[in-house]
């Protein structure tokens, strides 16, 4: 049961309050309030911040900085983040997007956290409240103990080099069976340095290393991407859950990757 709500005007103060223990941070509330409603918040103190810097979006050249408290509705209203609009649009309905934050998505357990897969594919780096920077792959590996994320920094993808696809069973919106995000520089002639990230294919968003290797140097056409799609699930450990079996996820991962590469990046 929550015994106290602590609201701090500065993120650093909220981080210090969290560090004292016995507290859980709440950004937008789409996960934390659900847990509070169901009596499983897990800490006696709820910590939040009203720091405007925590919600700020800024761009300098090709580099974009997203405050971890920025909402997905803010993402959709930002021209700088146009490449991420198709991703944000697939998260919940408008009311959820008004609350759901970019930073919160990094910590959202499966079947949520699709936006985080897109950030992983785009090579985003998290800046922690303590000042340290951390690539998302490292953050995901220790996200239960990493502390408070202040912002994310990423390079704006060029037109046609980023794609995203979410598979769900309910239309137009439903929770994710899996999602795949691809950044494929050099496409469509010869892919070089591709990053492929899946959500729903492991305990947190993961890069598909085998598929990335198979895509290196390939043409982005049916024949060129075939090897990468065949290797899509290699090295990943999709879960069995009521949404889909691990077998199903492994079977369709390559199909979704192919559609993403051939249809969503055009």
């Amino acid at each position, binding site marked *: 049961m929550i015994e106290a709500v602590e609201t701090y005007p500065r993120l650093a103060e909220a981080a210090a309050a969290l560090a004292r223990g016995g507290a859980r941070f709440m950004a937008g509330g*789409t996960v934390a309030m659900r847990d509070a*409603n*169901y009596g499983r918040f897990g800490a006696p103190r709820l910590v939040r911040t009203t720091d405007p810097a925590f919600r700020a979006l800024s761009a300098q050249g090709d580099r974009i900085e997203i405050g971890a408290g920025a909402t997905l509705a803010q993402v959709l209203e930002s021209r700088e983040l146009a490449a991420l609009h198709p991703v944000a649009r697939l998260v919940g309905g*408008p009311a*959820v997007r008004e609350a759901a934050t970019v930073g919160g998505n990094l910590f959202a357990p499966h079947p949520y956290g699709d936006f985080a897969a897109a950030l992983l594919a785009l090579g985003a780096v998290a800046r922690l409240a303590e000042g340290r920077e951390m690539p998302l792959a490292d953050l995901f590996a220790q996200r239960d103990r990493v502390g408070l994320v202040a912002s994310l920094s990423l390079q704006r993808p060029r037109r046609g080099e980023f794609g995203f696809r979410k598979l769900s069973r309910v239309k137009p919106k439903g929770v994710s069976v899996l999602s795949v995000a691809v950044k494929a520089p050099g496409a469509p002639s010869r892919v070089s340095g591709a990053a492929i990230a899946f959500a729903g294919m492991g305990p947190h968003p993961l890069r598909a290393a085998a598929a990335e290797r198979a895509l290196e140097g390939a043409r982005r056409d049916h024949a060129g991407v075939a090897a990468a799609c065949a290797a899509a699930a290699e090295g990943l450990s999709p879960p069995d859950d009521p949404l889909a079996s691990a077998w199903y996820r492994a079977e369709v991962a390559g199909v979704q990757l192919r559609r993403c590469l051939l249809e969503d990046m055009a």
Partner: protein
Amino acid sequence: MTKTPVQFRLNGMAAATFADPGANLLDVMRRGLGDLSAKYGCGQGTCGACTVLIDGRPRLACLTLAEEVEGRDVQSPGGIAGEALHPLQEAFMEHFAAQCGYCTPGMIAAAKALLDRNPRPDRDEVIEALSGNICRCTGYEPIVEAVLTAAARLSGSNVAGGWR
């Protein structure tokens, strides 16, 4: 456990109450202030039955910490009608867009948020705007038609209804 005083504007009127730590806006409105128009459906952001407008933007009251609305303007589905029914409410009646009716307040709140920002939405935009609201009677077509009808009336007339 200390309750927190929360003051905001609810449907244009000053509202003040005390919230338990971690209480959500829906509880505060329904139990604390007696506004029963937003419904409790799932408590986890899946159904949209508790949709309200906070500073004109759609939000799920069940996922909104009560303290978050301090000093802000909240419009519940019950506050959408003025002296007359809002054109959305009229259109919902005309199109038989309510079956059991439990989702209707949330649908109307979500639709109002859309029309306030985009007075002439197309069908896809209406569907997108309502995509977070579930009707388990599955009567979606009349709902979409009702919103399109209300949009046409609102954008094509200067009806004085007194709604907010």
